């Protein structure tokens, strides 16, 4: 098996702004080998994939294909070089049928569509994968698993020699995972090099020949599966340096502000129960696809829950719109600043008063600019938002300052329950510390905070208690003193003793 690697990434580095996403990382993919890549969110896996598929260019380092140095300038070039990727959400043409979805990108097939030949070829490729799928069926009705199979077939039809699978099992059932693994093994036997990324440890240990762990953009360990234990892998993933994080004060009050019982939304999450006290920070931990954000959205009324109860101050409430949630004192600070959180061309002041605009109107409905600017100035001072003036468009600010504007907007609604979704993602260290300070101050004021974060050290440092979710289900609630990185990761990956190993 240890012949020559098909694809070799040699000392690849890539920087985004102030973040070193990849730091001199090397990786070799051999034909007929399943190479698993493990790492927390933000470890640099996605960046590596994007470099392999030509979406990003490395700042430094070399890419060797069959021992020859290559430059992958675009996704099309990657495809031509035989590198294909399959994502969690497949890229399908829903109106075209299965066979067409496999062959649509083939340029050299002449002017005419030979349907019979295309169906035959499609069936042959699917047979090669030992998959039974009606090639005449439109893609619109296909399950995610079937769509992934189609994407694999598409990659095969393009003679892909390197197949990257990014979280392919996240949306699959146990049975579908089994089927996918059969396909993967078949591909391996045919000599395809596979880079397999998954958060499900048990799957990785089932399928991989070689396991590599990334952390903070660095390669931590890389060894044949037989030399690694799940415990070792978790330790490697978790051993993140805890930066100079803010020491939290204990601000939890006795008063239970929000009680959530058995909350669920069909097909998304179910059975979520927890209490939040005034002045408490409740961390939500979990990996990609854990559906933590969906719980936040349900509480905020964007995608309402359809089962379970929410009790605020002893009163059961029904929340089906954001306006209702705001009336109950709930605020949700989105993880997607640019897409959902801020109106980028509008000024800082306009964004801060957006959710509370009514307070800044004259009886005739005109905006009281002075009052608005006074409020914005107050927040600029309080959160030290760095901007020349509050009339600057938020699109021009750095990520950290945008985050502070978003926080200001929601603080201005005077919330009692503040849901923070990834509040420090993509912002620099200084701004991060400021946000942490802010969280502590808010808790001290008696605001209840739900902190959704994929940054495990952050969750551990900031939370009074940590709730762990996995694929829409409750996996455990840990007190501050019992929460360790290993324990939480194990729960988030479905490794806890109380759980059945299957999904």
């Amino acid at each position, binding site marked *: 098996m240890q012949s020559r690697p098909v694809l070799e990434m040699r000392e690849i580095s890539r920087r985004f702004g102030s*973040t070193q996403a990849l730091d001199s990382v090397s990786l070799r993919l051999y034909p007929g080998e399943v190479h698993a890549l493990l790492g927390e969110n933000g470890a640099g896996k996605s960046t590596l994939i994007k470099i392999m598929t030509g979406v990003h260019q490395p700042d430094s380092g070399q890419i060797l294909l069959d021992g020859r140095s290559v430059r992958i300038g675009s996704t099309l070039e990657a495809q031509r070089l035989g590198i294909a990727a399959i994502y969690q959400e497949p890229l399908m043409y829903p109106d075209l049928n299965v066979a067409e979805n496999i062959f649509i990108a083939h340029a050299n097939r002449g002017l005419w569509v030979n349907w019979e030949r295309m169906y035959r070829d499609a069936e042959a490729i699917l047979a090669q994968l030992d998959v039974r799928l009606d090639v005449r069926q439109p893609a619109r009705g296909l399950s995610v698993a079937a769509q992934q199979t189609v994407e694999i077939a598409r990659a095969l039809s393009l003679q892909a020699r390197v197949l990257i699978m990014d979280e392919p099992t996240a949306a699959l059932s146990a049975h579908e995972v089994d089927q996918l693994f059969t396909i993967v093994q078949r591909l391996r036997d045919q000599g395809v090099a596979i880079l397999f990324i998954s958060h499900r440890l048990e799957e990785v240990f089932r399928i991989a020949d070689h396991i590599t762990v*990334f952390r903070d953009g660095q390669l931590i360990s890389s060894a044949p599966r037989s030399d690694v234990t799940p415990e070792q892998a978790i330790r490697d993933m978790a051993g993140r340096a805890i930066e100079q994080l803010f020491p939290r004060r204990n601000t939890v009050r006795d008063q239970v502000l929000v009680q959530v019982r058995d909350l669920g939304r069909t097909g998304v999450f179910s059975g979520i129960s927890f209490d939040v006290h005034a002045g408490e920070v409740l961390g939500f931990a979990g990996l990609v696809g854990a559906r933590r954000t969906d719980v936040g959205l349900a509480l905020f009324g*964007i995608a309402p829950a359809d089962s379970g109860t929410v009790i605020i101050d002893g009163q059961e409430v029904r929340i089906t719109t954001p306006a209702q949630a705001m009336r109950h004192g709930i605020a949700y600070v989105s993880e997607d600043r640019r897409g959902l959180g801020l109106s*980028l*061309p509008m000024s800082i002041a306009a964004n801060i008063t957006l959710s509370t*605009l009514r307070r*800044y109107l004259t009886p005739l*409905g*005109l905006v009281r600019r002075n009052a608005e600017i006074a409020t914005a100035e107050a927040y600029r001072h309080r959160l030290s938002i760095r901007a020349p003036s509050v009339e600057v468009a938020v699109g021009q600010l750095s990520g950290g300052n945008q985050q502070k504007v978003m926080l200001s907007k929601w603080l201005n609604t005077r919330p009692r329950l503040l849901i923070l979704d990834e509040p420090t993602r993509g912002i620099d260290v200084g701004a991060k510390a400021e946000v942490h300070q802010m969280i502590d101050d808010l808790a001290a004021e008696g605001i209840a905070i739900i902190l959704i974060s994929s940054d495990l050290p952050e969750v551990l440092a900031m939370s009074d208690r940590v709730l762990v979710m996995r694929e829409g289900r409750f996996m455990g609630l840990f007190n501050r003193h019992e929460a360790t990185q290993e324990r939480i990761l194990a729960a988030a990956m479905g490794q806890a003793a109380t759980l059945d190993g299957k999904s």
Partner: protein
Amino acid sequence: MATNLRRLLRWEGFLLAILALVVIVNVSRAPAYLTLANQINLFQLSIEKIIVALVMAFVIINGEIDLSVASVMGLAACLTAVLFESGMPMPLAILIALLAGVCCGAFNGFWVAYVGLPSLAVTLAGMIGFRGVARILIEDRSIGGFPEWFTTLGQQPLIGPFPLSLVLFATLFALALIILQFSGVGRLVYVVGNNAAVARYSGIDTARLKMGIFIASGLIAAMAGVLLAARLGAVRGNTAEGFELDIITIVLLGGVSIFGGVGNLVGVGLAILVILNLRNGMSLLNVTGNVQTGVIGVLLILSVLLPNLVQMARERIQRRMAERKEVHIETETSVSS
């Protein structure tokens, strides 16, 4: 925003330059051009369209489009005429026509805001359907003989040398300017047009806002239709047919983006002046009405095409420079794994 602002200023500067050019050429050819009487006349000839353009600016900045306005104008005009002909007092007939406009707007708004259908398709159906209702009412007749006060109101000066429609336009322009640029509602129009999801995540009832704007669009269009009936003194089934093109052109020429969220009423006001003066100037040159429309069609395309071409050229230059220096331009991406 600063770049947007700069673009806008540049755009308004561009409109001002064109306007100055048009006016200078016109004055040089016809010294009486700048007289108050001629200017009033020039406004008067397109007054209904520019009134509707004001509300169309709201619709497009909000990220939608209303193709049905001209048909609502026609329907309101026909309804007024038919009701009057059947013996109803004129004021009541006008009121019912305005109400019909509100209903048309609410109809469009319902399908767009609450059912989520694309406004292009819905208002296209409205454009054909409302015109159809007007045709049912009036068939192939022409109804005139309105009371004298009504036609006088449409044609004669009301305050000083200004007729009612011009006074109404001035009032509405000021009102629209204040609402769009200075009020809370105006703020929300921009936010929704920019990114409706952000508005929703901020607790704003986007559906109600859209509904309100479509209703306003119907009401103002109906009012313009009644004014048109008063000015023309007679109404036919095809009254105001094809006006939507001119109205949308004015708004887009004014720097409002067809994708929503960008533009303001100062630009739209300048675009109105440009188009009116251009049309008037072409009339002075004995250019026929259809050629005038064609020229405006060219302007419409250029108003989007030129900024695009400049942008593309800039991108190309940047790319070439980047390749030469082998500098990797950093794309704005957050790191996520």
